[in-house]
């Protein structure tokens, strides 16, 4: 068994090495994810034993049987004793796996402490709603390290699935249902979250960032999110606010502290502070933002943001304004 564990460890290490930049579930930084990695090592070690046994027998049988003459072939039609044995062995293995499953499930299903916030799936972005604190943080959410995070999971249109691979486990976001997930983030860092249930054309571009930070940073983030939008300072940004309001962005988007109050699209109050654009389809840089505003249907085909033809200058002003919304 120890050898098998070591072997599984080697395989796991190989996987980790091959995915040093990826949101690998084996590089777990959340309590549930870590439990699952431990479970997986045991499960795969046991099952690797099964594979090696079957392959070993197959190789032996092929090597010994290939030159045998028909007259020398055995005439055996069965052997009850041996058949009982190889029914019992898988039964024992399965029982062990079942016990491991139940134990780990219990360890992951810690009692919930009431939701910290609600994650809402939308086609094709994420809304994180903090009703008690009075703000919505689309596509990027901060949580404090080493404290249990409790999330209510909902959807406003089709089924999505909430998944931060390195935190552990996924929970489907089903319209008409409220699901729940809880775990303890163990290490500070920026983790990729993904939609895991096929939800339509742009399922592939529905990501978010799950930011695990110190308690101080978290408090600071909450404080900033609660504030209304910053006043623009540069000339272009001031003009950008005018343009943004006049071309109808407010029918879908809200920027708290301005006349824009739409709820269909993501809240843009603190857009400039975020790392991604359009549910992390693009990194948030002025160049990317300009590209996005010019041609959302080219960047993310069939998304719900329409192409609005505007002169280049106005587009640049919008970019200047949004990037100032820290």
């Amino acid at each position, binding site marked *: 068994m120890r050898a098998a564990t070591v072997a599984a460890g080697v395989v796991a290490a190989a996987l980790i090495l*091959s995915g040093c*930049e990826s949101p690998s579930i084996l590089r777990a930084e959340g309590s549930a994810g870590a439990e*699952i990695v431990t479970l997986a090592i045991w499960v795969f070690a046991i099952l690797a034993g099964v594979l090696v046994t079957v392959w070993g027998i197959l190789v032996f049988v092929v090597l010994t049987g290939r030159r045998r003459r028909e007259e020398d072939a055995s005439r055996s039609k*069965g052997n009850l004793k041996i058949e009982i044995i190889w029914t019992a062995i898988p039964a024992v293995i399965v029982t062990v796996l079942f016990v491991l499953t139940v134990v780990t499930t219990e360890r992951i*299903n810690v009692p919930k402490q009431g939701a910290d916030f609600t994650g809402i799936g939308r086609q094709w972005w994420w809304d994180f709603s903090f009703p008690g604190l009075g703000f919505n943080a689309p596509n990027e959410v901060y949580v404090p390290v080493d404290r249990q995070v409790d999330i209510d999971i909902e959807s406003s249109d089709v089924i999505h699935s909430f998944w931060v691979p390195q935190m552990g486990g996924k929970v489907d976001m089903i319209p008409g249902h409220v699901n729940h997930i809880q775990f303890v983030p163990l290490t500070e860092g920026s983790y990729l979250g993904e939609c895991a249930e096929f939800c339509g054309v742009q399922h*592939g571009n529905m990501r978010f960032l799950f930011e695990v930070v110190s308690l101080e940073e978290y408090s600071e983030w909450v404080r900033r999110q609660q504030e209304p939008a910053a006043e623009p300072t540069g000339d272009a940004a001031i003009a950008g606010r005018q343009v943004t309001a006049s071309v109808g962005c407010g029918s879908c988007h809200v920027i708290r502290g301005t006349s824009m109050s739409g709820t269909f699209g993501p809240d843009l109050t603190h857009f400039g502070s975020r790392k991604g654009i359009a549910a992390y389809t693009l990194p948030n840089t002025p160049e990317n933002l300009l590209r996005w505003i010019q041609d959302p249907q080219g960047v993310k085909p069939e998304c719900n943001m329409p192409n609005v033809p505007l002169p280049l200058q106005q587009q640049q002003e919008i970019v200047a304004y949004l990037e100032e919304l820290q």
Partner: protein
Amino acid sequence: MSEVVQPPVTTPPGEAPHGATGVDHASAAGGGIGAWLTTTDHKRIGLMYIGTALAFFVVAVVFAVLMRTQLIQPRMDFLAPDTYNQIFSMHGTTMIFLFGMPILIGVANYILPLQIGARDMAFPRANALSYWLLLFGGLMLYSSFLFGGALDTGWFSYTPLSLEAFSPHDGVTFWTVSLAILGASSVLGSINFIVTCLRFRAPGMSIWQMPLFSVATYINSYLILFAIPSLTAAIALLYSDRQFGTSFFNPAGGGDPIIWQHLFWFFGHPEVYILILPAFGVMSEVVPVFSRKPLFGRASMVVMLGVIGFLGFTVWAHHMFATGLPTLFNTIMAATSMLIAIPTGVKIFNWLATMWGGALRFTTSMMFACGLIALFVVGGVTGVTLAVVPWDWQVTDTYYVVAHFHNTLIPGTVFAMFAGIYYWFPKMTGRFLSERIGKIQFWLMTIGFLLTFFPLYVVGILGMPRRVYTYDANVGWTDLNTLSSIGGYILATGFLLLFVNIFVSLRSGKVAGDDPWRGWTLEWATTSPPPHDNFTRLPEIRSDRPLYDAEHGWEDEGGRVEKIEWHSLPPQAEQRTIAPFWLAVGMLVLGIGMLGAPLVFIVGFALILITVAVWMTMPWTQIAPTPPAPGRELRFSFIGLGTLFFIGSEAVFFASLIAGAIHLRIHNSLFGGGSGVGLELPLINTVVLVVSGVTAHYAQTAYRARRKGRFFFLLVLTIILGVVFLGGQAWEYTHAGFGFADTIITSSFYVLTGFHGFHVACGIAALVYLVFRARRDLRRAPGERRLPEPTPGTSGLVDGGTYYWHFVDAVWVVVFITVYLL
């Protein structure tokens, strides 16, 4: 295949020539298209199934290649996102419904009657109908590409994504209607297989002595029979939501999308065993023959097939571990899912034990069988990991799952099918497939499979969700995807070499003879290809290896060796009819009408009525069932038996609808309360229908007692009561204070009573037909005062009609309780 040289039919010594009877055994192989349109020969139908399945296979492989090309590098612009979504949805739907099932059913169609020594399937015309429904269902599904786009919501089309609000073009509607047609085809086919196995085996062959491939198909038919109706119920509700604006799956209207998942996976999980059990059957034919040993542990092999089939119905929610079901429910489903590893493991060990001590012959067929053992266990093992609930929470809906099920389907179903094709091709055509191309194919497929799917396991663990049309360069998935795509091209090349091999071998393959592999089952006791009535002679059957016994003699317990006798069989004429073809055309037209063209719908309905009417004038029994062993009474005629299995399938359909309705009541904390016109009418209606059940029963008794007047009186009375019931229901519909789509409760009222009413109408039509049928039988015997002696044909019809009527009765009681009382 008409250019195939046919070996002469060998007439066993002492048998009279057939010329005198005007009917002979020789294959009625006319090459004309008419011969194919009108055939009821299970072998021709099997070939059509196989050909159609392979054609769809090519399309679905091309789709896979397109997908892998889109994913070969990050942020590729090879396919537009919506195109990609249509392609992966149609890839899955095609592989399952238009390749996987049809190829298994096609091979079984050809081989099963031969293996059990039957002259044809139990219902040859229904068999032809099954095929035509498959073809037209498939063509209809594909025609959606021409009308605004194909299915783009994945092969399990989760609601509410598949509702009109989120998938407005008609792809999903095409899919629902096509799947209903394909489902009808499968259910019809499964009844045919079951009755064939129960009543048409060669004299002396017990059901336990059927060859393993036939056993697997037989058990599989039960899975199809009881799984498909759950899908039919789900797609009926989805269709209703899309076309009539009901809200079964729409939370805004009180519906619940999770019902779809329960109904779909109650079908969907047995479906994956439907795709693997016949493959296990093929394995259990190929491995013993090429090990020159009897199958090891035959009894447990049969039992384990049954166990897998049964467990397959108890594990559906393991597809739903992430949907927030109660922990206890998840745990139970985890346990049942893991249990399946036991019978599957036993099967693997038994194949290995069959090879142990054998004289192995590495034909292409055997190589595919060994490849299956080596690689299928990996898929089985990763399947067990998916039953480990917490692990499933991480890897479900990632490429790990994609890798897992392809790992069971390619080195499982596909390898076994290739083993079967290489094994039985000589029987079907008289020529071998090229072994050289075969071995190249095997290695290309094995290497291609490993290269395609092992990287996908890893990339799933590295966090790549399935069904994404592209990915970013900075997440570390690029190299593995590139590798997988290259593997995909190799795999596709391996697959497609089969067509080269078929093409080459049909022209210049080595001539095979009757029993090229020295097999022991009955399909090798006839010519290659067999005559249209399959056999000129059959041996006495003592064991599961009749040809081994025929060669070596039968050794009894005392060690005395007894020579096995051969019996010659009378030739049997092939009956041809175009009716199944036109009935399937009618279903197609009806289906097109269901996409929103009421006139077309009516034309289709009329075409169906006319075809059914013509069909009904034909003699019912084409081939006679095997007489029971002396001293055994059969409780049911074979037609009655077929009806009973059909009823079982219908029962699952109603159970699915009722379970859905009850779920919605609980979900919304609502009560039914019927139509609002009070309980009196429905109560009277209930009494009427129950009484009609009694009259139907006594009509059947009277028929068996050959009492003419009583039979007609009671049957007509039953019909009148049925009409009264429908009249009452029509009155209730016109006086109900609500419409179909008003609320979730009104929608379930109309769906449950409506589907029941439709079944009553069908039952009445069947009873009316029985009246005419019995009158015609009487006219043919002028002067006869009593009904004719019960024959397998007509008395079976009376049985079938009355059983069906009892079923309609029983369903009403449950519907009544659900709709009016709960």
